[in-house]
């Protein structure tokens, strides 16, 4: 079985769970995200140091969907989290005690095709940047705008 371990990209990334929806903030890029219940489960697995390579089998044992469908979903969401610089891969398993995943957040009969939405918001990016008002003339300083 493939070993796939990841960790959250702290300290620039922080996340909180709200009844199966996870809000993730990236303090360096100014983007923030909402993960659906599957994304929340995946995040839970990453935070607990689980091997994501085992997740499709675990899901297939609990829910009526092909393991390949779950594997594709895990890969898809993981790839998105990596692309957004929210997580990074680990060469070795993290040194932490394993925790059981709360699969109930997926509901009684989840379908992989309906899951895995990672919503990205960049409307507050400019707030993170340093010149909210105007460009300042380098020599004259404020309140002289650059010509």
């Amino acid at each position, binding site marked *: 079985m493939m070993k796939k371990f990841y960790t959250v990209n702290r300290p620039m990334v922080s996340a*909180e769970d709200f009844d199966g929806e996870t*809000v993730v903030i990236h*303090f360096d890029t100014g983007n923030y995200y909402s993960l659906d219940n599957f994304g929340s489960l995946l995040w839970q697995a990453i935070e607990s140091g689980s091997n994501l390579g085992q997740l499709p089998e675990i899901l297939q044992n609990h829910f009526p969907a092909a393991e390949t469908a779950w594997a594709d979903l895990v890969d898809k969401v993981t790839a998105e989290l990596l692309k957004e610089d929210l997580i990074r891969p680990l060469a070795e398993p993290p040194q932490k005690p394993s925790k059981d995943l709360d699969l109930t957040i997926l509901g009684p009969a989840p379908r992989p095709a309906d899951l895995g939405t990672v919503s990205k918001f960049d409307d507050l990016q400019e707030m993170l940047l*340093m010149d909210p008002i105007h460009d300042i003339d380098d020599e004259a300083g404020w309140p002289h705008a650059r010509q």
Partner: protein
Amino acid sequence: MTGWRQMHHSDQTPEGRQTPGQTLETTLGTTEKSEKFFRRLLSIWENAAADSEEVEKNLLLCEGHLRLRFATRPLARLISRAFQHCRPPVTPDHNPFTIYVFAGREKEFFAQLPWEKKDFAAPRGELRSGFEPDLLAASYLMEIVYICSPKRKEALYWFRHEHYIPYFEQAAPCRPILHWWLRDNGWLMVHGAGIGDGGKSILLMGKSGSGKSTLSVAAANSGFQFLGEDYCAVRNDPFPRLATIFSTVKLTPESCRLLKLEPSETILEITGKHLFFLSDKLIREIPDGLPLAALVLPETRPQEMAGVQPLTSAQNAIQLSVSSLYQLPHSGGAEFRKLAQLARELPGWKVIIPTGRPERAMPALKEILASAPSTPRT
């Protein structure tokens, strides 16, 4: 060039960025290095105060004793107006948190700083010293610099120009420093407006342009207590509470017309907002904090009637946390965790306001407050 700058070029980090820790004597520990760095800058304030007429103000702000020591009278006048609602502490702290405020002496000041010009354009104005958390620093470009030593309970607040203080800084002075100080005292600064009624308060949240300012002033005009227009302080211990930080309001000319306000003092900026300082009457009515009953997200739409929709706790968290944390240097997961807890515990509502008719939202705001429990959670 001072010894500081000369060492800068010969002692680079792998990233090419110098930190104070690499320029001060290597035999000193981190705390000692940060102390030495802070004292060097404080001596500039001391020289500035010695050359002028120092003004000291002692304020009770969010239940803490804050001391402002201004090197000059003009700075005291421009900066302290935002704190007119603060009384002197009845029982002064023998060692209050002290902010030393000064301006000018640019060459002397920047000669002590390890940062390059590009460092002053970092996201959130955050300056990295290598001494965190012993020393926290931020800037507004190269115009304003904030440096805080939490252990010393002191901070430096420097301006490039004494007479050209940006209007947003006059409206919310030393915001990063207050954020760090409030955080150490159990409060969190949030981006939001506060209004109160019947012994409870609402935090109006949402990004800039959502209508918080207009709605908070409209509420004050309708008999609500005004607790803040752009930033407020919140805490969740022992129960959710909200307190006023600044007694100022910034409104667009359109909002002024809508609210029938004639600005007695206008500071014309490229954004075109007017800065108001609260009247004595409104200042007298500002309470010493109120239990926080609900979170409200205003939204303006072209419709006749106001409306109310519930928010999920995740939506609460997004609206409450993101715009706050993105504006506050050296904030991150710890603050998000605390705000997330508030977002889970408090009911959240989207209040839809008919365009140009903020007064139509008042019944909804009263109802939200009335329906919130009157006994705080213990």
